[in-house]
Structure formats: C-alpha cells, structure tokens
C-alpha cells in the first residue's frame, strides 16, 4: 500500500488529476470538470446525494460503465471518463 501521505494521480477524461488519500472518484471528477453524466433528456448532471443513493455520479472507471463514483476511492493510474454528450 502506498504511503498514506502520498498524493494519488489519476486521469479524468484525459486530464491528470492529483488528489489526497481517501479522495473519492466523484471529487476527482468535479476537480477535472463540471459534470459526471448526461441525463436521458440530455441535461448535464453532477453528484447530488454524495452517499451512493442517487446514481447521478455515475462514471466509467477503467472501462467499467455506470460506477457510483462517490462510493469508490481514487486509485493510482485510474482512468475515469464522464459523459459529455447524449448516451
């Protein structure tokens, strides 16, 4: 396990983001951009509940779609992609 004082580096939509230990993927996504997903009618959406209930924070993590980013911690080298346009 990495030194807990170390920063974790990951990418969100290709943007390199550095976060502290224990940071969630949702926080990293909002540091890199404005939204996490696009709604069924095309609205930009970002986290609402912060606790794994609302599913607004869904992103793709290392190729796995529909991950609740607020409940998953950042890991070194993680590749996160948010939705930028209609699904």
């Amino acid at each position, binding site marked *: 396990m990495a030194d807990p004082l170390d920063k974790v580096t990951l990418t969100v939509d290709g943007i390199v983001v550095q976060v502290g230990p224990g940071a969630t993927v949702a926080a990293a996504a909002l540091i890199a951009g404005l939204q996490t997903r696009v*709604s069924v009618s095309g609205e930009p959406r970002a986290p609402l509940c912060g606790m794994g209930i609302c599913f607004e924070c869904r992103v793709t993590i290392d190729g796995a779609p529909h*991950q609740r980013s*607020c409940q998953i911690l*950042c890991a070194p080298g993680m590749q996160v992609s948010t939705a930028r346009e209609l699904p």
Partner: protein
Amino acid sequence: MIHDFDIVVVGAGPAGLAAAVTAADCGLRVGVVDDNPAPGGQIWRSGAHLPAAARRWKARFAAAHVVRLQGWRIVDCPEPGVARAQRNDAEIGRDSSAADGTSLRYRHLLLATGARERFLPFPGWTLPNVMGAGGLDAMVRGGLPIAGKRVVVAGTGPLLLAVAAHLAARGAEIPAICDQASLARMAPLVLQVLRQPGKLWQGASYRWTTRASRYLTRCWPVSAEGDSRLRSVTLQRDGKRWSVACDYLACGFHLVPNTELASLLGCRLEHGFVATDQLMQTSVPNIWCAGEPTGIGGVELSLLEGQIAGLAVAGRTSDAHRLARGRRGALSFARALHRACRLNPQLRDLASHNTIVCRCEDVELGALLGRAGWRDARLHTRCGMGPCQGRICGAAAEFLFGWRADSVRPPVFPALVSSFLEPEADPMTPREAV
C-alpha cells in the same frame, strides 16, 4: 463461499458500529456489510473535524473481532437467514480471485441502514453544483476543494448548521443558511437543546463558526439559475425574493429513513419508520433495526439503539432493558426534531409543470399531475423506475402528492448478474480491508 454469522449488521454508521462492537464483545460471530468506503456512516464520514465519540467508536470497531465487508452492499435476501452481498468495485480492476458477490448466512440480522436526505424539486435543482447539504459535506470530506467557494445552505433541519459550520471551517464562504421552518416550530427543539449541555455546546460552536453567515428562518430557495452549472440561487422569505450568487447550493429538507431492506424482509412500518419493540426487534423474528430507520433521532439515540440490539441479540436481556429505559428520554428529542422539520405546505408550489421530479428518468411534474398513485405514476411515466429505484423522487412524491411506495422487490439496488452466479471466493482475501 458462504459465511456464517450469529449476527450480520447492515450499515456501519453509529447504530451499526455500536451494535457490532457490543455483539462482538459478547462473543458473537459478527459480520458487518457497509456500502461506504470507510466505516462511520454519513454523520461520521472520514475527514477532519470528527467529534471525540466518533473517534472512540471507530477505534473500538477497528479493534473488534468482526468480519468487515466494507464497500459492499446487500442486494437481496433470497431466503430467511441468507443475505446476498455485492462488492461495489466488482467491475473495476476485475481479478479472477475476487468474487463479485457472496452469501452471508445469519441467525440474526440487524438493519442499521441509516437515512438519506429528502430532496424537493424546484426549478434548477438538477443543475450541477446543486447538491444535498449532507451531499456537499460528503463530497468535501471525499476530497472536493471548498476553500474560497460561495455556498448557500438551505432546506430544513439541524444538519444545515452542522454542514455550514464544517464548510466554513474549511474556508468556504456561506452567505446564507436558510431553514424553511419558523422560529415557533423550532422552539421545542431549541428547548431540548438548551437542556442538553452536549448539544447546546455543539450548536453554539456551529453558530460561532458560521457567525459571518445570515441565518434565516421561514426562508427557502425558489429556483437555481445557471447554464452548464449553478451561478445563483433565488431565495424567498415572507413573500420577498432576492438572488444570491454562489458556486454551490447545499440543499436538503431533513432526512428520510432507508427502509427498503426492512420492507423487502416484510418488517412492519409505522408512519414510514420501521416498527420495533423495546429491544429493537422488528415484527419479523430475528430481524432487528436500530438508528434512523426507527425514527430520526440523531447520533446519541442511534448509539443507544445499536447497543440495545447488540445486547438483546447476545441474550443479555436485562442489560438491554436497562439501556432501553434510557432510550425514552432520547426519544423526546426525536419528537421535537420531527415537529421542527415538518415541511411548510407552500413548498409544494416550488416545482412548476416542466420541473423534473424523477432525475433518473427525467419525468416532469406535469406528467405526474392527475396520476392515481405511486404505482400508477411508475407504470405510466417511468417515475421512480431508474437506477435509484425511487429513493430520491419517492420522498418528493410523498410530500407533493401523498403517495407511498407500495412494495419493494429484489434486487434492492441495481446488481450484477455475475454477483449472483459467479463461483464464490472469500471476500476478504482478494484485497486488504479499508
């Protein structure tokens, strides 16, 4: 592999921690399943500014002889005595030795599933950076930088002041804290707080930390404005409206209990809360419930209920009864809290025809008008049929229309087929416990 436990605790907030530690101290085999990345629930989420009680209970939990499934959630209870759990990161960095799901066999099941915020729809509430009050707090504890940001905190309940104080301590600028309740409604709660030195000290220190912010009663947001994200919020008080520029709106209208698992198991609900006896047993034998699902009462009551349930499950009935007597006093705070947070009927008029109510399926208010009930609305509009399964819009629809969800079906959260089917391995071996 199937794991065998005397008691499986669902949720590692104050109630779950207290129950797990108490049961383990009594020598029971305890398993804890918690959806969050770390124990503590929402109120004791990781990060700085945790009260001493939180540090103490977390330390006891860390030292307790307990099997922890941290970052897992229960998705089904397929038969009595068996719960099915799925790992949250099952699809990420998939390694073949790690099972996506596992079955937990239990003699007793304790539901310490906590509460979520109630959200009410108003124009602009779906904009990015409009979050729950607890929601923004959780995001900040999860690493979202907040220093120098302008945050309007609104909604109802004591959580607002706690969140505002935490954000202010982290360097946020809080122009206003708005509670929809009137001072008269809050009075019984304030009296309760005055009688309890601990709560009084906490409340006073929160207000001191937020002394630069206006604290407004009878005040609520009527709309949030922005383009791709929030730019400002329009507040209303006594018929007067004004606009406040901000980066975030942290808005939650008190809490609603997470009762889905209890409903699935057939536990009786009363006024939306899980009914229990004095020792926290539900209407279903060997299914117990502690904390916010039995009534929103805060940390102290949750800790008490967790300990009562832990002792009762371990057969220490007289000790459990002794603690249960102390619970009665704590319940009066819960009742005052309930009254203080009752919603002003004017809040029903916030949403207009084209305001989205169901954020998963983008169902607007206009589509719901005239529907006969929750089930009718679901069938005709897909309201509540998205991945959150009505957890967000359900509480709003209950306030707007008086609709109640009539049934809960498995899986209680969207689940992977593989978490039911794949060969199982020990969930604790593939990665280190958090």
